[in-house]
């Protein structure tokens, strides 16, 4: 299939008083879309709507060429991997058990994990440099270690589309670069990726395409080179940005609305 793996047309959604959209975008195999914007711009809401976890108030999402609503739950869950922001794990499961949850859409409803499930879990743990954490209870892990395990959970599902809400949060620089590499690798092997990223230089490293949100509206979208410029980002975040995309100072009279 040559078309986009995931496509949104005129997508609007609301959570409480907040209204997002309309947003139109397309996620193509082999490409990474980075979603940027100040806190409260609607980035997480957009990802929820794209994942079909939040019903749109207008517009529609198509996954693998079909309306999201027409796909059954399992097919949707197999095709789409969603990584929530700052994911919590409510029981003190082992890291391996958490990653195994990513196999849920592939496993039959009863019975122990099959060999292919264990293999996928092993690969995902290895890819995120978390093999040595496999038997540790997640509540004993540091924030960064847990973030890697939760990302491995998404990879274990072998999704065609990855929707990641701040996958670089809590990671040290080395593991940030590693996760950027993993997202790029996933795209390289034919998946489509959308990721919310706050770090501007890392965003440029990661992105093929970029979408800049503010107050629920798209203020810039297109190829990364066109969107991730000091000028556009400065406008979007209300800050002065250096040529290397390093935030330098808030604009006059704008205090620190964005971090």
């Amino acid at each position, binding site marked *: 299939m040559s078309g986009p793996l995931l496509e949104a047309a005129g997508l609007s959604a609301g959570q409480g008083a907040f209204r997002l959209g309309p947003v139109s975008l397309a996620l193509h195999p082999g490409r990474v879309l980075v979603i940027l914007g100040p806190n409260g711009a609607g980035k997480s809401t957009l990802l*929820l709507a794209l*994942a079909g*976890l939040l019903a749109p108030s207008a517009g529609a999402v198509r996954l693998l060429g079909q309306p999201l609503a027409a796909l059954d*739950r*399992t097919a*949707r*869950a*197999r095709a*789409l*991997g*969603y990584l*929530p922001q700052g*994911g*919590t*794990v*409510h*029981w*003190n*499961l*082992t890291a391996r*058990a*958490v990653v195994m*949850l*990513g196999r*849920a*859409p592939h*496993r039959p*409803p*009863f019975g122990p994990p099959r060999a292919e499930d264990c293999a996928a879990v092993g690969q995902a743990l290895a890819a995120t440099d978390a093999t040595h954490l496999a038997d540790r209870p997640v509540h004993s892990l540091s924030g960064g270690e847990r973030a890697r395990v939760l990302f491995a*959970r998404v990879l274990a*599902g072998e999704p065609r589309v990855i929707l990641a809400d701040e996958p670089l949060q809590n990671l040290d620089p080395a593991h940030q670069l590693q996760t950027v590499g993993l997202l790029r690798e996933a795209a390289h092997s034919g998946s489509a990726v959308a990721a919310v990223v706050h770090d501007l230089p890392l965003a440029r490293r990661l992105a093929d395409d970029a979408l800049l949100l503010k107050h629920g509206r798209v203020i810039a979208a297109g190829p990364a080179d066109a969107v991730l410029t000091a000028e556009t980002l400065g406008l979007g975040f209300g800050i002065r940005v250096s040529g290397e995309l390093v935030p330098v100072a808030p604009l006059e009279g704008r205090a620190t609305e964005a971090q």
Partner: protein
Amino acid sequence: MIRSGLAALVAAAFLLSLSAGKAWIAPVRFGDDTPEALVLLELRLPRALLGLMVGAVLGAGGAVLQGYLRNPLAEPGVLGVSATAALGAVLAIFLGASGQPLLIAASAMAFGLGAVALLGLIAGSSGLQLLLAGVVLASLSAALTSLVISLAPTPFALGEIVTWLMGALTDRSLADVRLLAGPVLVALVLMAASARALDALALGEATAASLGVDLARTRLLVIGGVGIGVGASVAVTGVISFVGLVVPHLLRPLVGPEPSRLLLPSALGGAALVLVADSLVRLVPGAAELKLGIAMALLGAPFFLWLLWRTRQELA
């Protein structure tokens, strides 16, 4: 390993429940043409079977509720489900259903279902909100039950209600066993069907949904399973609390925290606990037998307090 160990424990507890009493009877006497064999068949066997079923459904119900609400303090008794089911039964007795166990059971089940549904609606996933809602529900049901009792038309009805409320497996027949077997089976099947979804819920509702979990279906399975199971067991044996709290807690370190892996062991552990406790209350000296519900609360309440204390230690 642990499952077969627990299964052996249940078998041993079942045999103990058949034998234990003011008169000890070896279970090998089954089929003899003696008074002992009659006691075994008519009194001890129904009692052991009821203990088995009630314990299993309460243990599994606790594990399921804890998994669904992602809260180790959840339990049908603590959350007022048992008390509300009891209100349903008391109301049925009050309205003249005293000779019709089927009607009492149906009323208890309906109230139990209502209680779980109400909790699911009010509490969402916040543990504190849920416990508060449960406490309110429990005291409201207790107050309404007291009201019904105070309005009881005759001392006889009053006695019947009070005795029944205390929770016991005494003087039950094979008819009670038949009445309970169906709902318990249905409840256990519903709970088992929710197991995999409960595991995924460890990652929160949104992520579970993204993994293909049907949240509405899961909610129905949990509400249906716990409401029917607890409602039916309360209808037949009165309120027996804390089993669903204690058992999953003791077993979690042994089998791991995944709700799906905890389900069957909790059912077995619950059965063993109720069977043993019911055997022990028969052995307590005295003219009147100590009620099982009271004994369980005497054991369970301190355990619950200890649990709260330990949770606080962990948070500190």
